[in-house]
């Protein structure tokens, strides 16, 4: 008898909790602004205070302030491994359960799972950084012309170097066109102000590994490089440059506070520009599934404030180049040679965004992998 009573009680509780879920769902569908929630899936931890995830999170913070959202309206899922489909799905399902209306996935590896889930959860908007997948209703991607900012940062490096040897700590090898395109744009920037300088690349094969990044930077410094640029997530290469009393060009976020005596400037993303736009549209119900590809013109990428370490005239040179880009200079304009002596862009032609961020697997002629 007691057993039956107990099971009846449990049943009642279950039914009640179901209804509780149901009512909650109804509330969120009513859709006024205080119910609107934004979720972001981070590969790292914004608490690192610098680097890729931090830069994205700064964008989220900017969006939150701009749209006057409360802290409850922003859901963060941190340290979500982008090679673990189960973890990605769990993180996003949690976010949806908490009431997310739009989900930003910040890492490449989230793409396939987002594509699948966009079909299942048609009333949630999925937005993915750096990928190429999208659909017509609730899934788009966003990325940008960071190569424009890299070109500008190359100018700072080219003007600063004394040995005409610039080191570049790269996360991935020649096959990764996001990295390779960045290196080439940087080298073009260097060449535009210092035709004698060469860019030496060392690859760590890891997006984030401070120890490896530091070792790679030190090996470049041992070769005689006196400016260290990077496409890697930690500040370690900048710290290595500072310890040797030479210079560096960071990435993702302004690293001047980390290496005040070495850092010149860094190509940075202003993710907030997109996050604010997308979240605002989603909140007002005007969101359309269009892929976003921003650049200097949109204020989506830029170089961080030039530090006092920069050579004289850097600011003028960068401002002039910025103006040229705004006036239509494509950065990759022919005639360009790769470091094997092949023509990769014929005279009078220019490479497209798709070529630069998606299909670049050659190094510019002043680049050498060491």
């Amino acid at each position, binding site marked *: 008898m007691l057993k039956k009573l107990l099971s009846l009680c449990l049943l009642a509780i279950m039914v009640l909790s179901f209804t509780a879920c149901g009512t909650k769902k109804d509330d969120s569908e009513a859709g006024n602004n205080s119910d609107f929630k934004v979720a972001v899936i981070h590969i790292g*931890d914004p608490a*690192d205070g*610098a680097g890729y995830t931090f830069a994205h999170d700064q964008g989220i913070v900017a969006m939150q302030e701009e749209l006057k959202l409360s802290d409850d309206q922003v859901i963060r899922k941190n*340290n979500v491994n982008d090679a673990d489909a189960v973890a990605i799905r769990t993180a996003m399902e949690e976010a949806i359960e908490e009431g997310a209306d739009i989900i930003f996935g910040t890492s490449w590896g989230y793409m396939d799972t987002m594509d699948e889930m966009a079909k299942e959860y048609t009333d949630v908007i999925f937005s993915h950084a750096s990928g190429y997948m999208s659909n017509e209703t609730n899934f788009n991607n966003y990325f940008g012309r960071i190569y424009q900012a890299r070109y500008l940062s190359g100018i700072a490096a080219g003007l600063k170097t004394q040995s005409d040897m610039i080191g570049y700590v790269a996360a991935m090898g020649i096959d990764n066109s996001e990295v390779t395109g960045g290196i080439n744009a940087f080298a073009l920037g260097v060449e535009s102000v210092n035709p004698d300088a060469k860019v030496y690349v060392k690859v760590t094969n890891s997006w*984030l590994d401070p120890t490896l990044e530091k070792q790679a930077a030190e090996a470049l410094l041992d070769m005689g490089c006196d400016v260290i640029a990077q496409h890697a997530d930690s500040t370690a290469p900048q*710290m290595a440059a500072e310890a040797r009393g030479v210079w560096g060009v960071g990435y993702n976020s302004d690293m001047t506070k980390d290496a005040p005596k070495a850092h010149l400037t860094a190509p940075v993303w202003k993710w907030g520009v997109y996050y604010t736009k997308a979240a605002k549209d989603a909140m007002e119900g005007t969101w359309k599934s269009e892929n976003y590809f921003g650049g200097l013109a949109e204020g989506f990428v830029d170089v961080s404030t030039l530090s006092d370490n920069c050579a004289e005239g850097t600011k003028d040179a960068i401002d002039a180049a910025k103006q040229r880009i705004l006036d239509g200079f494509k950065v990759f304009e022919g005639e360009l040679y790769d470091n094997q002596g092949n023509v990769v862009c014929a005279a009078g032609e220019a490479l497209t965004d798709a070529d630069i961020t998606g299909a670049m697997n050659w190094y510019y002629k002043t680049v050498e992998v060491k």
Partner: protein
Amino acid sequence: MIINFLYAAIKAGTPLLFGTTGEIMTERSGHLNLGVEGMMYMGAFLGFYVGFHTGSLPLALLAAFAIGLFAALIYAFLTVTMMANQNVTGLTLTIFGTGFAKFFGESMIREAGGSPKLADSFMTTISEKPIPVLGDIPVLGKLLFSHNPLVYIAVIIAVICSIYLMRTKAGLNMRAVGENPAAADAAGINVTLVKYIHIMLGGGICALGGAYLSLINGGGIWNNSSAVNGQGWISVALVIFASWSPMKAIYGSLVFGAFSVLQFYVPKDIIQIPNAFYVMLPFLITTFVLILASMRKSKEGSQPAGCGVNYFREER
């Protein structure tokens, strides 16, 4: 070029030397502690935290050592007194230590309002500088006498541990406990005490390796996601490579350090091997050493016979 390479190898090998020496002390007393990674993480955090707030290197190292002692005490209590499975306990300690460092690391960042950075005076203390006179010797001066202070500390600890193990009575007792605790017990050695002391000592030394990573390798900035990043596991492998001898650990860590920086010093225009191969090399060599050791069939340089097995007095 070669000198720069060897110099970088020594630096890369130092955290491994700490971890390996610590783990050798632990394993020699009969306990396989797979928590090296976790203890390193805890040492990395506390060493950095204390260094950040006090600006004193000795205090930072002492704090790291102390938290290593504490972490190993947990392990020792569970495995020696409670007879828990050593592998499982060690793995748990790794997970705990990693979480511990990341949890408090995050609150340290909040407290500092951005990524915490060590004071310039602290950075000068731990910077690489030649020892007067000795540092002026060509080649050798750069290779042996121009390091940051922790490199010397690591070597000194390894040498002391080696002398202690091989040349003192206490070391002999401890080896006896590791080889055959029942016999050692019968000979009147306090097995439990010896195990506690050496597991904790080993943990403290491992944690110093973590402090090396956060203070030196991090360049003075706390990196919350990957302060240790697998170096603890490499240390565990290195114990086998060094055949449980702290002296051999010195060469061993140099070899492993050399492999870890090799990819950055091989001229890529002449020799083209995929990077993954360089990452694989240390483990390949370890396998090779293991095979050689098993072929030799000598007791010398093999794992202590009692390692990994809990000693239960009533089962004698």
